[in-house]
């Protein structure tokens, strides 16, 4: 039962950066080593010997999207509870153990995954592997710890969302844009759902999704696969196989009407406008063009929206075009702007539409396209600076399909043509149903204390 059957694949991942090897003089060649244990755990190893450090990441393919209706926030609460101890490891021992070896540990939850990581000196790798393998199935959480941690995540929600007007607007827009897909509820969960979560809900969720076959272990850094793999077998190889995984497939019905929400917040200072359009994600072939589109519109200070709205016209303090290139299910392309003082939300909203229409009236020039591609490619190279980032990129691709998708990224970006950019505009933006969120500041707070000058009581 504990015998390990290894399917070993050796893949050479070659990035020909900037499409012109002669110009760059060097291609970056990396070797990702891929294995699967008998219990179903997927393993990705990538040596990077810049420093004697390593990042260990366990990617569980479970996020808020897998939460049962009415139990929003459960995936994120589970993430917190993973630090509350097992039979073998005391409740406060995770960070203590890692930090006393000079390392750092933490975790994060998204719509699609929950990720645990340790960054530490490579000679202590085994410590992290032991902790992670152990808590994959042996968590022990009593009622008291459960309810204390629930309070902690409620404080987190107050901090991150409740008291942040633009974060609240974002949540409201997303939950309006989706009718039935679980993407409609926030990762931190609705307060009322959190309130009602019981320990049994957590246990059921944990037993279902925390198992080797639903996880990817990524190790990047100063490692040799010959020495690391036996350590992984020794630790994760012992984790028992889990029950069959439930199938969670969702398909959102098309949005039939424009939807508009208006949020009034007394403590808000400047109007904020957020537009959301439904779009596909990678591996859909249009994902590359959408990625380039977001870059041309708002990537960097010389981008269209920033150059015009922030610099030339001074209508906005901040603008953005966020496209989720990687997402398990289709999500939303966001366009947003925070108004400069004196600008009305109506003016800002109209200006955003005008700029989107401009895409067709004066389509991106070859120069704009070239610049966007160079920015994306250079950004990719700069992201290789950090082993933690390298691990994140591999883990994200693998948990959504296969890390080999990464090989298609730059070549896909390079192929994007002007026609593709116009086509994706016509397919997903032009005249399409959207969700509009408007944040309207109001109340007396504005006039009271201005930064650094008057003290208010």
């Amino acid at each position, binding site marked *: 039962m504990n015998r390990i059957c290894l399917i070993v694949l050796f893949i050479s991942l070659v990035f020909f950066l900037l499409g012109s090897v002669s*110009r*760059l003089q060097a291609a*970056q060649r990396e070797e990702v080593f891929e294995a699967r244990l008998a219990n179903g755990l997927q393993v990705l190893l990538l040596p*990077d010997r*810049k*420093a*004697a450090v390593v990042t260990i990441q366990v990617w569980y393919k479970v996020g808020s999207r897998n939460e049962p209706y009415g139990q929003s926030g459960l995936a994120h609460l589970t993430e917190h509870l993973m*630090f509350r101890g097992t039979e073998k490891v005391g409740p406060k021992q995770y*960070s*203590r153990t890692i*930090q*006393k*070896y*000079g*390392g*750092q540990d933490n975790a994060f939850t998204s719509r699609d995954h929950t990720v645990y990581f340790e*960054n530490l*000196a490579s*000679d*202590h790798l085994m410590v992290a592997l032991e902790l992670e393998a152990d808590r994959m199935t042996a968590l022990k959480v009593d009622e008291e710890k459960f309810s*204390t*941690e629930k*309070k*902690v*995540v*409620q*404080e987190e929600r*107050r*901090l991150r969302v*409740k*008291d942040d*007007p633009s974060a609240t607007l974002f949540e409201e827009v997303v939950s309006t844009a989706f009718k039935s897909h679980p993407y409609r509820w926030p990762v931190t969960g609705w307060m009322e759902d959190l309130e009602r979560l019981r320990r049994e809900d957590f246990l059921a969720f944990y037993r279902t999704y925390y198992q080797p076959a639903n996880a990817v272990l990524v190790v990047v850094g100063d490692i040799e696969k010959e020495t690391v793999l036996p350590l992984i077998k020794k630790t994760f190889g012992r984790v028992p196989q889990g029950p069959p995984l439930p199938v969670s497939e969702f398909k959102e019905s098309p949005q039939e009407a424009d939807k508009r929400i208006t949020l009034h917040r007394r*403590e808000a*200072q400047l109007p904020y406008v957020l537009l959301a359009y439904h779009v596909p994600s990678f591996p859909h072939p249009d994902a590359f063009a959408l990625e380039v589109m977001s870059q041309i519109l708002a990537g*960097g*200070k*010389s981008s269209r929206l920033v150059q015009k709205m922030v*610099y030339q016209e*001074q209508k906005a*303090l901040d603008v953005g075009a966020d496209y989720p290139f990687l997402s398990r299910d289709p999500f939303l392309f966001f366009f947003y702007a*925070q108004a*400069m003082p004196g600008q009305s939300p109506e003016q800002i909203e109209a200006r955003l539409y005008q700029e989107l229409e401009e895409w067709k009236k004066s389509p991106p020039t070859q*120069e704009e396209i070239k*610049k966007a591609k*160079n*920015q994306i*490619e*250079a950004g990719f*190279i*700069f992201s290789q600076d*950090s082993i933690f980032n390298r691990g994140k990129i591999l883990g994200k691709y693998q948990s959504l399909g296969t890390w080999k998708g990464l090989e298609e990224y730059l070549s896909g970006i390079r192929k994007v043509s002007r026609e593709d950019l116009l086509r994706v505009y016509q397919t997903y933006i032009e005249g399409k149903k959207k969700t509009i969120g408007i944040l309207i500041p109001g109340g007396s*707070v*504005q006039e009271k204390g*201005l*930064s*650094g*000058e008057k*003290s*208010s*009581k």
Partner: protein
Amino acid sequence: MAIAAFALKGLTPVSWAEPLAHKTKLPNGLTLIVAERNQLPTVHIQVTFGAGSTQVPANLAGLANLTAELLLQGTQRREAAEIRRAIESVGGSISANAESDYAQIHLAILKKDLALGLDILSDVLLNPIFSQQEMDRKVAQLKARLKRLEEEPKQVAQLAFARKLFGAHPYSLPPLGSLTGLSSISREDILRFYNSYYRPNNGTVIIVGRVSLEEMVSLFKSSLKGWEPGPSSKITHQAPPVLQSPVIEKIDRPITQANIIWGHQGIARSNPDFYALQVMNYILGGGGFVSRLMDTIRDNLGLTYGIYSFFDAREYPGAFQIALETKNENANQALSETLKEMRRFLEKGVSKTELEEAKAYLTGSFPFRMDTNAKLVRLLGAMEIYGLGMDFPQQYPRLINQVTAKEVLRVARAYLQPEKFLLVVVGNQQEIQLKERW
């Protein structure tokens, strides 16, 4: 014992024996620090000047940052938009700003485009024009950024805390400045500030990437030709005032959490007790999930998502702060439990295990302060600004490891002031009902 030994082992990066970087001075007085890192075809450059907000009179608050940001807004050869377009066309990035103790420009670019990057960098350093139009734009934007800060309860609390704690000292205002300061700055003020402070002998260039010292010396010599040293214009200040009694500042906001900052004056970076205080603070509230405050207030009581304490050690004594957020109704309880932890610390000091674990973390985590080129640039910058010496990474373990439990208790008692504090609470005061005595 075992722990400390392990951590020291973990400290050894691949090329530990070699110096981290090479340092030299050009004939015009510019300091050049180069760390060759060949893994990526990239170059990170940071230029720092002793041109932070401490060098600005109070009535012109914001001048240092405004000057730094305007460097990128047009030169004799290039308009603002052209600078951005040129750098971003090759996938690079450039930014500039000022902090309280220094001003900095950051450039990140692929090695193949280094010549372009240096051409632009030297252009913005030597030939900025500070046009009235660009200045007006930037001032409007900075004022809007100040207004935007008012929306973030944490920032509101931080701004109020600094204002109350530092009094007439320039640390009382953020580097962004103030609305009145920004309104008072003239173009002449900027030109004067630029001419006095943006001099090679007041600056340091730090370069990390696929470059060598020799290569950079010759490139910088030619690209910065004509840049002349100037007389020192450094303004010095009295140390910030010390609180004589408790001060409580309540700010009412229609929000769900009380954003609490408790603290007082801390230390300057040059204070020799810095290292003992790092160990002390790690155990009290700086050690993340391992700290006593996090353990009690978050893990045991569930009162907060995060609680941290820290010493902001700068050129002049910065603040010591304990900061947390909790549901309005729990503010009194969370604060009283926090202060209880601090008093227990002052009474009993730390255990041997706590001490060893703190030292093991602080020394063992050092490689993570330089495991990327972007981080290494910042570390080298801090080493230079605060005069820590090029062998700081090698010295650091010794400085930490010599701290004893007795030292920790001594510095705790010397630098924590439970009777003379500043308490700022931003939140719904009706729900908070903050106690008057602490």
